[in-house]
């Protein structure tokens, strides 16, 4: 095996030094000449008819440059199901509905103007529960669909129905079966940097959008479609990212505020910035999709799963963003977490007058895994098998083809489960019921791309200058995950330079090739594979130059020596060693013959070769530049929702030990072991950061976090009331990195951005059960819920 110089090393994030000196420019910090500030005026009702809007007082306020309502912008629908307009003209269907927008010379004036807009509403009956909304007499959230056809129901026309094998057969084959109803709720992504953008048109009417998106080309696609619909066909769009203050899924879709900024910029012909305040971020940003699952599983007498039957209901809110597509990811754990031959999964998305949802780290996986892993524990108990052993029996193995047709290649799940068992002291600690307990849960996630769009490709461009410095134009985005460092390590390794020689540009559609998006934990895998391919080409170019250059460099050296020392006799060298690019290699900035890496004359610095070869004269000058576009040989899901959508899959297991205070219902996490099959850790320190961060967000998901929504209104739109974890919430996470070296991964690596969050909440729930014998099937597991369950337990006994 080759020993890597930079891959596998904890290279510091020096490339991001701007972030520790206050120099990094976030959207908050970015100003354009003549820039105006936009502010959105939201609905005051969850469901109402707009009877009248009077903007005259707002328009008269000094400093206001534009006021827009639904009457002032084209009545064009946007979004995944085209079920909303940019500004709402006649009806509002949720509290965050955008009714009007203002552009002014300062954020304060814009906010004041918003307050001066008078809107008269006629309240309509709302529906705030998806089960209520499915009833025949429920108020309709939408009366017509995108094409104007009348709607009879609040149920969305989405095909989330998956079936594999024969569930009835599986039921018959089962010696034990269990049924659970499991609920998950809305949580906010809580990016520390709030949402924002700047829209700017040039005199030719072409748009530059300074953005935070992690899907830059998806942005261009959606805005192009919008331009076509509003009569701006042919106008060009460039999306450029500022430094991004966290993403966690929030920047996957093009949000309404971005279209509003575009409209305000069109109207004023000035750059317009919209930047959310924190309360807006809680009220008007689509959070994680909630879901209610009915899950039934069975196993035979040996504990092997025979079937899994799941139905889910998702509160879609009033409009449709990516939240409604989370079932496509839920299907992965539903069908493929553990070996289960017969599977049925159906998800129904229902319109309500609540907030609508988007993506969040893990997409639908944390919700679905909470259901599966709750059921795994109850089934293990029914079968009288230790829950950890039960998971070991049913674990995925390398070479499996799952019911969803996922091809499992490398799979370190067995080792992850074993790590949890050993490090947590599972055998000694389990089953005491003394207020302390252990629990675990596993995960599967895409880790080699995710073909959710026709192309799952990723482009990269690399150029090397005469000093041996490397510029990388990356089509992905950097939202803080560490990509600049990790990609610089992989480029340095593949090209033969050092990480500090590499500069990277991210998130600019005007420069980059194409990318499906920095989502689905795919950046390291995709960018790494693309980088390896591009570096191979660039290296070949340099080596061809080296064949021409090295003899001259060596002979020039001899000449200089001879001038100093007339006695010097040049040695007789075997120039055959360097006669062909294939005979040479580059490593750590040095070009050398493979057969004699330490050759005293033929080992030369890369910049000697480049300086000699690049800028040499008429007709002879060259550049070193290469590009690669990596699109893995994966499959789109077919009509049955089956297909190998990722080139490889991540596995992991989290075990936790908790203490439950029976007097207060409070749960304390005493220990957490998070074992992750990552293929290969490109940068162990940065990898740990992904695991720790995701685990913490998972603990919040499990224990504290919830957007409280009452009759459609967000009741806790502040950090104080939302209860994100702080540094005082100590979670002793012990990360275990399992490295089976994935054959398709760059240097063996798989994706790891999302997995850490996925099994955390169910592992906690299962540990609580082990500690005090109450099973909480609804997130978050607050002290109130634990106390109520303890009371029920005591009453029952």
């Amino acid at each position: 095996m080759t020993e890597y110089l930079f891959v596998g090393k904890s290279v510091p994030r020096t490339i991001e030094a701007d972030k520790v000196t206050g120099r990094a420019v976030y959207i908050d910090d970015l100003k354009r000449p003549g820039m105006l500030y936009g502010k959105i005026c939201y609905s005051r009702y969850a469901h109402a008819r707009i009877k009248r809007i009077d903007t005259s007082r707002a328009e008269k306020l000094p400093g206001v440059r534009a006021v827009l309502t639904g009457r002032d912008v084209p009545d064009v629908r946007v979004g995944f199901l085209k079920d909303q307009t940019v500004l709402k003209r006649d009806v509002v269907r949720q509290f965050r509905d955008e009714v009007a927008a203002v552009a002014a010379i300062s954020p304060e004036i814009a906010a004041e103007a918003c307050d001066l807009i008078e809107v008269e509403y006629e309240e309509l009956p709302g529906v705030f529960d998806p089960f209520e909304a499915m009833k025949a007499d429920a108020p309709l959230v939408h009366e017509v669909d995108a094409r104007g056809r009348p709607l009879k129901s609040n149920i969305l026309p989405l095909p989330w129905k998956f079936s594999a094998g024969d569930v009835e057969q599986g039921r018959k084959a089962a010696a034990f079966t269990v049924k659970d109803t499991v609920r998950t709720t809305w949580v906010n992504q809580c990016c520390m940097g709030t949402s924002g953008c700047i829209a700017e048109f040039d005199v030719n009417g072409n748009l530059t959008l300074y953005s935070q998106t992690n899907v830059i080309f998806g942005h261009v696609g959606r805005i192009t479609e919008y331009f076509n619909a509003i009569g701006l066909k042919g106008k060009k769009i460039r999306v450029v990212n500022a430094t991004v203050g966290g993403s966690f899924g929030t920047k996957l879709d093009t949000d309404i505020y971005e279209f509003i900024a575009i409209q305000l910029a069109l109207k004023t012909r000035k750059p317009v910035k919209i930047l959310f305040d924190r309360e807006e971020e809680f009220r008007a940003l689509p959070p994680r999709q909630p879901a209610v699952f009915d899950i039934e599983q069975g196993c035979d007498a040996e504990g092997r799963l025979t079937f899994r039957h799941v139905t889910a209901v998702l509160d879609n809110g009033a409009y449709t963003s990516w939240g409604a597509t989370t079932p496509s990811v839920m299907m992965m754990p539903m069908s493929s977490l553990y070996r289960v031959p017969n599977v049925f999964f159906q998800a129904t998305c229902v319109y309500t007058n609540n907030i609508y949802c988007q993506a969040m780290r893990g997409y639908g996986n944390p919700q679905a895994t909470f259901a599966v892993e709750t059921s795994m524990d109850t089934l293990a108990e029914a079968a009288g098998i230790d829950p950890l052993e039960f998971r070991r029996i049913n674990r995925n193995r390398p070479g499996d083809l799952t019911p969803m047709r996922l091809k499992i290649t490398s799979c370190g799940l067995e080792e992850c489960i074993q790590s949890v068992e050993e490090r947590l002291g599972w055998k000694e600690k389990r089953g005491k019921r003394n207020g302390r307990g252990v629990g675990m849960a596993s995960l599967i996630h895409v880790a080699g791309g995710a073909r959710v769009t026709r192309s799952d490709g990723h482009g990269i461009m690399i150029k090397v200058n005469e000093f041996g410095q490397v510029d990388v134009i990356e089509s992905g985005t950097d939202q803080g995950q560490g990509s600049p460092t990790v990609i610089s390590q992989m480029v340095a390794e593949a090209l033969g330079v050092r990480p500090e020689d590499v500069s990277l540009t991210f998130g600019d559609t005007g420069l980059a090739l194409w990318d499906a998006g920095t989502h689905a934990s795919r950046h390291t895998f995709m960018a790494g594979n693309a980088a390896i391919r591009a570096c191979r080409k660039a290296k070949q170019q340099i080596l061809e130059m080296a064949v021409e250059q090295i003899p001259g460099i060596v002979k020039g050296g001899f000449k200089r020596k001879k001038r100093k020392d007339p006695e010097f006799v040049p040695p007789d060298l075997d120039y055959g060693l360097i006669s062909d690019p294939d005979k040479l290699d580059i490593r750590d900035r040095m070009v050398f013959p493979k057969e004699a890496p330490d050759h005293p004359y033929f080992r030369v610095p890369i910049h000697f070769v480049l300086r000699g070869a690049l800028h040499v004269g008429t007709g002879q000058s060259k550049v070193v530049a290469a590009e690669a576009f990596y699109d893995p040989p994966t499959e789109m899901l077919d009509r049955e929702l089956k297909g190998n959508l990722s080139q490889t899959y991540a596995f992991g297991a989290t075990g936790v030990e908790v203490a439950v205070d029976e007097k207060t219902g409070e749960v304390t996490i005493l220990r957490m072991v998070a074992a992750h099959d990552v293929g290969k850790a490109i940068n162990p320190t940065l990898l740990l950061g992904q695991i720790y961060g995701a685990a913490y967000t998972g603990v919040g998901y499990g224990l504290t976090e919830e957007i409280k929504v009452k009759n459609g209104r967000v009741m806790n739109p502040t950090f104080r009331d939302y209860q994100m974890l702080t540094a005082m919430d100590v979670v002793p996470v012990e990360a275990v990195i399992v490295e089976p070296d994935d054959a398709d991964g760059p240097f063996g690596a798989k994706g790891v951005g999302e997995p850490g969050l996925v099994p955390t909440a169910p592992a906690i729930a299962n540990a609580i059960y082990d500690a005090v014998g109450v099973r909480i099937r609804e997130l978050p597991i607050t002290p109130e819920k634990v106390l109520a369950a303890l009371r029920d337990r005591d009453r029952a006994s």
Partner: protein
Amino acid sequence: MKKVSVSFTLNGDAVTAEVPVTWNLLKTLRDYFELTGAKEGCGVGECGACTVLVDGEAVNSCLYPVFEVEGKSVTTIEGLAGEDGALHPVQQAFLENNGVQCGFCTSGMIMSAKALLDHTPSPSEEEIREGIAGNFCRCTGYVQIVEAIDMAAKKIKQAG
């Protein structure tokens, strides 16, 4: 709007700002002095992204009325590195131990850490956690931040 003239020391320099009386210190730093390292994460003193030092104490500059700073000394993240550009040990440790991810909380986090280490050169883990209790971070789970501050404390002590 009525303006107020405030003179104070900013990152070692004597400065005077003429800003609306309603402005807080954060807005003054960001919009008047164009020191945008301190961030507004919530605007109501809950998240700590705006933390700067006033006379050596970490404060939420989003809650700090600008006229209160008269005659005082303010240090922001921009004033932390040495004159030669050398990073402060806390900044260096954040880079080395992955104490920074998206970076939005980082300026405030580092200033809280600096205030802590100035008062408590050898903090326990609990003291470190208390020192940054008012600084929220969504990326890191605080683990590598706490470690980084500990590393910086040891480094400062060694350099002695």
